[in-house]
């Protein structure tokens, strides 16, 4: 089985080379994306089979590549299988989408070779079972995605984003590298099996946790390592943005689980505290940014930060429960995390696809130039609405199911012995709830401004429905959003082996329960039944509607909007992206983001229009990154004179070095 997986991945790499070879031919786009679609579908199928069949077992393989005395080890266990499934489902959808979307690519030569390599690298990371192979694929993944971010390299900001991205990526890689170096020891036995056998103790584990947070967090976009994400993800072509947000961040989550839960040894109770705090912070900061953002793709990227925060919060819970040997609770939290990772892949990819379709249809990413697309792109509007409901964590969609599990896990926190956790977990719960509510607000804004209302620009008014392939991909991911929400029990049982592999415990079996209810802990505590809720809502809505139409009036008439009697004061009078976000800016932004509104009111009688200028800052960027960059440049400036000294000075350096070393010798012993 693993051999087949590796063969398919190899085929992907070959496909990348082939793309270089046939970059001139017009068929290249179709061939490459078609090939990628077929291969990733096969990978997805294999991974799903593995997830269902592996159980506690694992398949291993090794190739005589990489480090000569070690080779590259691959290991396929349930955890890896789950993430493979997530990645390759997203990849298949992206390839399908790109079959249509790729036609609009100005320079396909800059996308086609790297796309399959990117997919292959993500798969390899999940399969690798030794530090070298892992980091090799990890960094290859970064490199390929960097090249993809630079696809439209003529916009200066894309180049800047790419640079920042690759720099942060290799920072993360170095962090992981140090971590692995510490785990493997000077002997350098890098295979995960050997590392896990060493069972590091105490502060070694703590250090590894810190480094894993830096490494995986910088790739996942965890606050405060998120600054690159909202720049880089939108810069790439939309199907790549979808992959980066939907799949690559999940690879980072996988890395965190693999390292911290399996390699770093027994966790201390406070590990969970740290991860919880970071997760909570990411949730709220991310969604607040998203709420104030006016560029649709950047908005989605920020919301990715929020969801990653949610996942990491659940992981923190799992760590805490695990440290206190509360297996069932840990399993619940881990299930919530993995379930949400899966969900986020589904709806975030859908949304990015939708954003891409909007971009190609209207040529703009600015919310303030969109509107009314529900009329012009009807069959796009429906799945996007579904994805919005899902990401806003509203029942009966999948986003709610996973978040509900997280809350259930939080409700188990009183049994934790440590005070810090007792107090931190509910506090994090507040942050998560706040995040969920703000996310709902954010996506009301997103959907309401982009798809509802009246078009705010001629481009939006002239938009036409997108192509079949893209629609197929979008629907193909939106429908699972609903299904996973209606039958969460099935999903929970499906990912149970992965949970087992990561925390050595699993949730009770759900599929046997009456009416497909899910009961995470005990029936007396809580239960949820998505399908029943759904059926009741639809049934009552339909009956009421039918009754009303049957017994009351069904007459309807179109007329100018009433608008409190003002009549039509023009399209500009609609709420804009900024004005919609303004109450929340006032409520949250002024403190956290130092958001300011500057109003220029012309004097009475002047014909100049009144203007409002809004600004906000990313506290993390201004507080952390700008000083660091500034410091490096300062040092560089300070040292630069050493390039311009006279020969005599340089010679005196040699002389002084000599004298210094001789002095050292003189005082040595």
């Amino acid at each position, binding site marked *: 089985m693993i051999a087949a997986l590796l063969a398919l991945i190899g085929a992907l790499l070959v496909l990348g080379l082939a793309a270089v070879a046939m970059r001139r031919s017009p068929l290249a786009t179709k061939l490459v994306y078609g090939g990628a679609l077929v291969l990733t579908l096969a990978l997805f199928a294999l991974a799903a089979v593995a997830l269902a069949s592996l159980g506690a077992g694992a398949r291993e393989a090794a190739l005589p590549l990489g480090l000569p005395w070690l080779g590259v080890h691959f290991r396929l266990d349930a955890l890896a299988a789950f993430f493979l499934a997530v990645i390759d489902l997203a990849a298949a959808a992206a390839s399908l989408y790109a079959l249509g979307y790729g036609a609009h690519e100005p320079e396909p030569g800059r996308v086609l070779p790297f796309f399959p390599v990117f997919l292959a690298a993500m798969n390899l990371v999940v399969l690798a079972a030794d530090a070298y192979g892992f980091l090799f694929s990890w960094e290859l993944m970064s490199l390929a995605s960097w090249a993809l971010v630079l696809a439209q390299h003529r916009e200066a900001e894309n180049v800047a984003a790419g640079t920042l991205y690759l720099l942060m990526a290799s920072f993360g890689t170095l962090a992981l590298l140090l971590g692995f170096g510490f785990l493997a020891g000077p002997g350098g036995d890098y295979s995960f099996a050997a590392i896990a056998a060493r069972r590091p103790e105490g502060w070694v584990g703590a250090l590894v946790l810190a480094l894993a947070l830096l490494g995986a967090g910088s790739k996942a976009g965890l606050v405060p390592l998120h600054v690159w994400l909202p720049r880089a993800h939108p810069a790439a072509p939309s199907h790549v943005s979808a992959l980066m947000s939907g799949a690559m961040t999940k690879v980072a989550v996988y890395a965190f689980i693999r390292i911290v839960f399996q390699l770093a040894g027994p966790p201390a109770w406070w590990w969970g505290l740290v991860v919880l705090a970071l997760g909570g912070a990411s949730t709220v900061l991310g969604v607040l940014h998203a709420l104030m953002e006016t560029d649709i793709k950047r908005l989605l990227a920020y919301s990715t930060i929020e969801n990653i925060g949610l996942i990491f919060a659940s992981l923190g819970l799992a760590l805490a429960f695990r440290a206190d040997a509360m297996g069932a609770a840990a399993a619940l939290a881990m299930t919530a995390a993995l379930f949400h990772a899966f969900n986020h892949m589904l709806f975030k990819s859908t949304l990015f696809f939708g954003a891409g379709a909007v971009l190609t249809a209207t040529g703009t990413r600015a919310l303030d130039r969109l509107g009314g697309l529900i009329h012009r792109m009807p069959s796009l509007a429906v799945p996007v609405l579904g994805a919005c409901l899902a990401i806003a964590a509203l029942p009966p969609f999948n986003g709610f199911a996973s978040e509900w599990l997280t809350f259930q896990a939080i409700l188990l926190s009183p049994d934790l012995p440590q005070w810090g956790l007792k107090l931190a977990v509910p506090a994090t719960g507040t942050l998560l709830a706040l995040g969920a509510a703000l996310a709902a607000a954010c996506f009301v804004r997103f959907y309401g401004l982009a798809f509802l209302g009246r078009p705010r620009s001629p481009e939006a008014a002239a938009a036409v429905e997108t192509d079949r392939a893209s629609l197929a991909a979008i629907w193909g991911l939106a429908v699972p959003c609903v299904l996973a929400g209606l039958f969460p029990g099935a999903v929970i049982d499906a990912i149970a082996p992965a949970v087992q592999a990561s925390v050595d415990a699993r949730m009770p079996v759900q599929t046997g329960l009456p009416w497909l209810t899910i009961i995470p802990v005990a029936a007396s505590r809580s239960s949820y039944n998505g399908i029943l809720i759904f059926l009741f809502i639809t049934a009552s809505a339909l009956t009421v509607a039918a009754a009303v139409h049957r017994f009351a009036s069904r007459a309807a008439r179109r007329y100018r909007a009433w608008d409190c009697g003002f009549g039509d004061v023009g399209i500009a009078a609609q709420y804009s992206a900024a004005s919609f976000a303004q109450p929340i800016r006032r409520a949250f932004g002024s403190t956290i983001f130092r958001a300011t509104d500057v109003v220029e009111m012309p004097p009475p009688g002047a014909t100049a229009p009144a203007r409002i200028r809004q600004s906000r800052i990313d506290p993390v960027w201004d507080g952390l990154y700008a000083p660091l960059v500034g410091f490096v440049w300062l040092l560089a400036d300070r040292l630069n004179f050493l*390039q*311009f*000294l*006279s*020969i*005599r000075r340089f*010679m*005196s350096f*040699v*002389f002084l070095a*000599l*004298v210094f070393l*001789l*002095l050292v*010798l*003189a005082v040595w012993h």
Partner: protein
Amino acid sequence: MMLPLLDTAHMLAGGLVLVSFMMLYQDRLSALINLLALHALVLSLAVAWQAWIQNAPELIITAATALGFKAIAIPVALQRMIKRLGIHREIEPVVGISATMLAGIGLVALALVVMLRTTASAAPLAREDIALALSVILLGMLIMVTRRNAVSQVAGFMSLENGLVLAATGAQGMPLVVEISVAFSILIAFIVIGIFLFRIRERFDTVEVQALDQFRGERR
């Protein structure tokens, strides 16, 4: 061997150090070149003496090269050159004379400390000689570091080479390859320096290294 012989060797080596100090002190260019000649002369004497006491005739060659090239040919050439370039004017060392002298003394002390660390297993003569040679080398570098003028830097460099020769000859029975290479390197050094000075003459009318420094790749 009898001590007086060794003492003579010492005396010559010490004399070399002394001349180095004089060079360190001297800040008139032409006088400096004369001292350079003296330096080479003392060196050739020392080498000759070594040749005798080690009864290693091949060292005579080295002594001869030192005498011929360094004591006569090169100083003459240099004198002519500075005449042609018209720079016999005062040249001030970068740091004050006294400071330089103090530094020089410190260096000699350092050289002795470092070398006398070695156990006496190496023949005492060689050990002392090496210590003195090391001081000459360090002093030569000090001259190069404290002078602005290219010619005086060349002078410093050559006194440094003299120190090397002293060391090489002090190390008894060192294969000839080394002396040849030293002479060779000096020859190369002089030729290339000559080429450079000539080219520099073509470009601008001074040999000040600082003038060269104006043309650095990245100055805007």
